[in-house]
């Protein structure tokens, strides 16, 4: 065995760094390429989107976005020529395909539904989760361990396994296809995760902080609000992101329980395909816009998220 070179145990060598870097970049590419592909497709024309071999370089077009936000009807060229000059960019674009805009599509209302339901349920889950986590963390709750296990056990079965009973219950209760119904459902699924995550974070905050505040003349609720909550923001942010991602991406229940007014974006986007041929650019445009809120939310909270994920892990 050669012992001529001394290896530091802590600092990686230049070679190791290079290898690690290569692996990370390669993995990032593999992960990002599908997203880039969707993003690129959203700016292609329908013929470019199905061209073979696939076009890497292409003339960007906003046709996909026009198609996403509108519904169109096919007309004869004579009819189109008989119309006045085009009223806008999209009008002009669709006329080239012998179509006229019939009205706005359902994408915007569905997207707004998604926002309301995802953020609403995230707020509820985190709100309830914070309070119950605080309770479990600070008070002697009878059968606390069993209750916590029970809360966790609601996640042991895939939620979709109870889809049929929930569908029937919702129909009876008049919650089918309502934003309230979806918020309740996603809250119920997320709250167990929220309780467990937040309990970990709140356990880490020494109770002396509230005790000091309570001795200094505050009620428990005030002490919680002024001393515990500000220190739990990291955990709350991390929990909120997890809850939001679930609620935002959820497809199965949304497809089953919403069809009209309360339909969210995930079940809506695939329906675009059916409207007048396979309109991949419109689907890609819908997907791209759909990704934006999570992206923005995660970027805004990335510091808390990163700290939040490492926080409990390092200390315990």
């Amino acid at each position: 065995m050669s012992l001529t070179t001394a290896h530091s145990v802590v600092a990686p060598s230049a070679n190791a760094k290079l290898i690690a870097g290569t692996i990370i970049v390669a993995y990032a590419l593999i992960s990002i390429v599908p997203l880039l592909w969707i993003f690129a497709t959203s700016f292609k024309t329908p013929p470019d989107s199905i061209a073979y071999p696939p076009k890497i370089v292409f003339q960007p077009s906003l046709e996909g976005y026009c198609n996403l936000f509108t519904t169109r009807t096919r007309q004869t060229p004579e009819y189109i020529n008989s119309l006045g000059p085009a009223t806008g960019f999209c009008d002009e674009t669709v006329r080239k395909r012998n179509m006229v805009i019939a009205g706005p599509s359902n994408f915007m209302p569905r997207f707004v539904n998604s926002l309301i339901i995802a953020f609403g349920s995230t707020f509820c889950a985190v709100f309830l989760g914070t309070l119950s986590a605080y309770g479990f963390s600070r008070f002697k709750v009878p059968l606390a361990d069993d209750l916590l296990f029970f809360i966790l056990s609601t996640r042991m079965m895939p939620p979709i396994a109870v889809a049929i009973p929930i569908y029937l219950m919702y129909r009876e209760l008049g919650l089918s296809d309502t934003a309230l119904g979806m918020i309740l459902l996603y809250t119920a699924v997320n709250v167990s995760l929220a309780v467990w995550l937040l309990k970990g974070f709140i356990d880490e905050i020494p109770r002396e902080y509230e005790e000091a505040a309570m001795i200094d003349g505050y009620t428990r609720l005030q002490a919680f609000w002024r001393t515990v909550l500000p220190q739990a923001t990291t955990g709350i942010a991390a929990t909120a992101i997890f809850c939001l991602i679930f609620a935002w991406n959820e497809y199965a229940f949304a497809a089953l329980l919403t069809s009209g007014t309360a339909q969210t974006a995930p079940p809506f986007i695939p329906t675009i395909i059916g409207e007048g041929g396979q309109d991949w650019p419109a689907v890609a445009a819908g997907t791209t816009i759909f990704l934006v809120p999570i992206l923005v939310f995660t970027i805004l909270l990335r510091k808390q998220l990163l700290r939040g994920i490492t926080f409990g892990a390092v200390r315990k």
Partner: protein
Amino acid sequence: MAEIRVEHLRKAFGDFVAVQDSSFVVEDGEFFVMLGPSGCGKTTTLRMIAGLELPTGGKIVLGGEDVTMRRARERDIAFVFQLFALYPHMNVRKNIGFPLLAQGMPSAEIRQRVEETAKLLRIDHLLNKSVSGLAGGDRQRVALGRAIVRRPKCFLMDEPLGTLDTEFRDLMVHELRELHNRIHATTVYVTHDQMEAMSMADKIAVMNHGVIEQFGTPREIYDRPATMFVADFIGSPPMNFLGFGGGLAKGSKEIVVQGAKVAVPEVREDIAPAEMALGIRPEYIRFDDASKLRGAIYGTEYLGTTQIVAVETADGIIKARVPAEIRLNTGDHVGLALSSARLSLFDKGSGRAVRTAIHDAAVEARHG
């Protein structure tokens, strides 16, 4: 400021009794220290006075009012925690002003009070700093500031110097006592460190297994320990014990230890024959070849002005504190002379001190 009266206080957590039947009075303006090993119930007692725990039994009277079952915020006390509990999301000024905000005091007045307090503690230059960047001593001062800013009925402190470096600790001991001398706040201070207790306290309660073993001034506790536990817990090195048998008769002034006659303070009670112990502090032992009580030198510990000498006797190791100049060699045989007026006698079974003339001296001292 107010007097704190604790009567027959008891606290049980399930089967475990943390505090049993504690009674004591902290007089107005007194610096009172609860001293004992960890788990002895001193912190639990403090938390009950604060209202952070409710007692299983007994009574707590604060300034003449029974507060036993009152909420912490209704007791008008201040608490300094071991880990300071400074709010990391607030700066020094907001931390100190936090209790005043609870009272709904106008912000101009809060500002003024916070600045006065900061000046008193010499931390006025730190007011706008974040607490997370502060050194240990300054954190401690901010925690104290938050306690005194409200001018509460009393201060409760739970090992507030426990996390500081030795260097800071000595400084803070001095500062705390000085602060107390200036504001004369009734203070209950919990610690396991006898040095802190001895140097700051007006009165000390030594606790063990949930029981107050002795309540008294630092001098009483050191010179006239009420139990063998106190004698052993206080002092460094602790009190030596030499076993002897037989009973004691009222009025006797001499006992026999390891075949040697030892003069002791006059015994004031009759004790039936039992296992007894003679207690002697290391500094009251001299080397005297004429003494019949003998041993061999086992080891020495040089401390500069004095040295601690371990002597192996027939009844185990005895430690003596003697001047550093004396030259000694391991294995040397020496005679041990004990200062008679300073000896304590204990009943080994109960650990209780036997009443002797040293207790009379105490009574005289108290009345004189």
